[in-house]
């Protein structure tokens, strides 16, 4: 179990490191006025940026608009990018900040109720059954199989939306984008300990939400 986690972690970070080197080349080309390099950066990251934003804000149209706004800001400010953090980190910081600001402006994304009956009323008996099987299964199911489970997907997304913005951002960056704690701290500009505690509270709350659905 530990080996699997560590392997995932190292693979993810190695991927980012390699990507950072390529990004540095692309950024230098951008500084020299190479618009093709900028297009390459957009095409490379647009889905990842969009996916993170979508998981935080939950609205596809708004996510597309925020993604677009992110890249516009990146291009406008790439002249001032000093390379103290990686381009990847810098770009995600812009994206998450834009998205969190957007969430603060939109009260409709706020879910304050964790009432069990309200939570349960949203899902069908089929969804309950799928979730119960998932949680009771001691084995580690194949993520690809899980991803094709529509009921489980809806429950996961809705549960995620019940977290507050800060917790949701940490969980998304860790469990969906696969960042390590240090990079999350840089993206959100918070302490490493804050990342740790915020992630712990988010997962505990998520667990409570799921248990409430099953009750």
């Amino acid at each position, binding site marked *: *179990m*530990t080996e699997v*986690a*560590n392997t*995932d*972690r190292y693979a993810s970070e190695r991927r980012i490191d390699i990507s950072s080197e390529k990004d540095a080349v692309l950024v230098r080309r*951008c*500084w*020299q*006025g190479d*618009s093709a390099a*900028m297009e390459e950066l*957009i095409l490379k990251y*647009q*889905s*990842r*940026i*969009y*996916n993170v934003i*979508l*998981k935080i804000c939950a609205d*596809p149209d708004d996510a*597309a608009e925020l*993604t*677009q706004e992110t*890249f*516009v800001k990146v*291009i*406008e400010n*790439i*002249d001032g990018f000093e390379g103290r953090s990686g381009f990847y980190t810098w770009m995600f910081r812009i994206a998450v900040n834009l998205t969190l600001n957007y969430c603060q402006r939109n009260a409709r994304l706020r879910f304050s109720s964790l009432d069990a009956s309200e939570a349960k009323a949203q899902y069908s008996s089929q969804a309950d059954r799928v979730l119960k099987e*998932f*949680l009771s299964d001691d084995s*580690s*199911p194949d*993520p*690809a199989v*899980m*991803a094709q489970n529509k009921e*489980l*997907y809806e*429950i*996961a*997304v809705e*549960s*995620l939306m019940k977290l507050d913005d800060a917790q949701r951002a940490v*969980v998304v960056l860790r*469990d*969906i984008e696969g960042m*390590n*704690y240090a990079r999350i701290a840089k993206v959100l500009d918070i302490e490493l300990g804050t990342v*740790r505690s915020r*992630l*712990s509270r988010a*997962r*505990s709350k*998520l*667990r409570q939400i*799921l*248990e409430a659905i099953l009750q």
Partner: protein
Amino acid sequence: MKEIPNMDELLNSFIDGELPARQQTEVQRLVDHEEKIAQRLQQLRKCKMLLSSLPVTEAPPQILENVKASLAGKPLLDESAFRRTERAGTRHLLGRKVFAAAAMLGLVRILTAVVYTIVAPETVTQSRGQKTEDRGQKTDSDFRLLTSDFRLPAAPFSGRLELRTSYLPAVVAFINRAIEDNVPSATKHRGQRTEGRGQKTDSDFRLPTSDFRLICSSESFNLLLAELGNIWDKLDSATLFVDTQVFGQRVVVDAVTAEQISGIVNQDDSKRRMEVAKDFAVLNNIAEHLPGREILTAIDDTTVGLITPPKPVLTWNQKTEKKSPARTKENKNIHLTITVVGGDRPSLN
């Protein structure tokens, strides 16, 4: 299930592989021995798996085009980047030009200094002289020198005029009034004494004397002199002592006339002034000792003489022109003491 906050943080870090190797081992041992902790770990792992299994949603294909469209109205990246590169290039080029210019100036300066030290002094002097003589044209420096020569004020005159008269009170009063009228701004000092002082001869003792010390301009002095010419026939003698540049040496012009005084004083050059004064002294001395003095005087009156200095205009009974403030600022280069030595004679009127 009761939450164990610290344990949850530890377990989450364990799941995410964020613990150091030693802690990772310890947690693993704890999970192996504690069923509750193992269950909790499983729950947290399920939560992580649930979110991790969420499919990656592809970005809408129009994002790139939209980004380009959004940037269409703004300065493009490549343009700003080119501008930055261009600015940097321009600065670099400008810096190199400035450096080259500074180096060139330094080199020229060094070469100029070397050439000037070795060759230039004679060459420059010769060329300047040739220019002035051959072409009759002046260089700027020459022009400045000539201009300053032309504008040099007349050499200051310093001397004493000794007038002997039998009509002392009248003459003194006349001189005093003439000074008041013509040289109001002049520095003057009048003193009276009954005995001679300083360089007086023995015969001067017991004679009353009046001194007028003037410091005035030559123009004012000419006006005064013209007026004094009207009483010249009331004088027994007139002697002008012209100070020289050598202390204690004087040129003494006996039997000096008002015209001669004007001719001496109005010389701009002190050297020329001395020559004129000596000429008059010799001339007057010869005339004094030659027979037919009256004839010579008559001839002199008709302006037939060897020397014809500018004559002052006599303005008897004419209103004296008042000086403007500007004129009072003229160069006061006449330093003259008029000494009037009298005898016991009736009044002028």
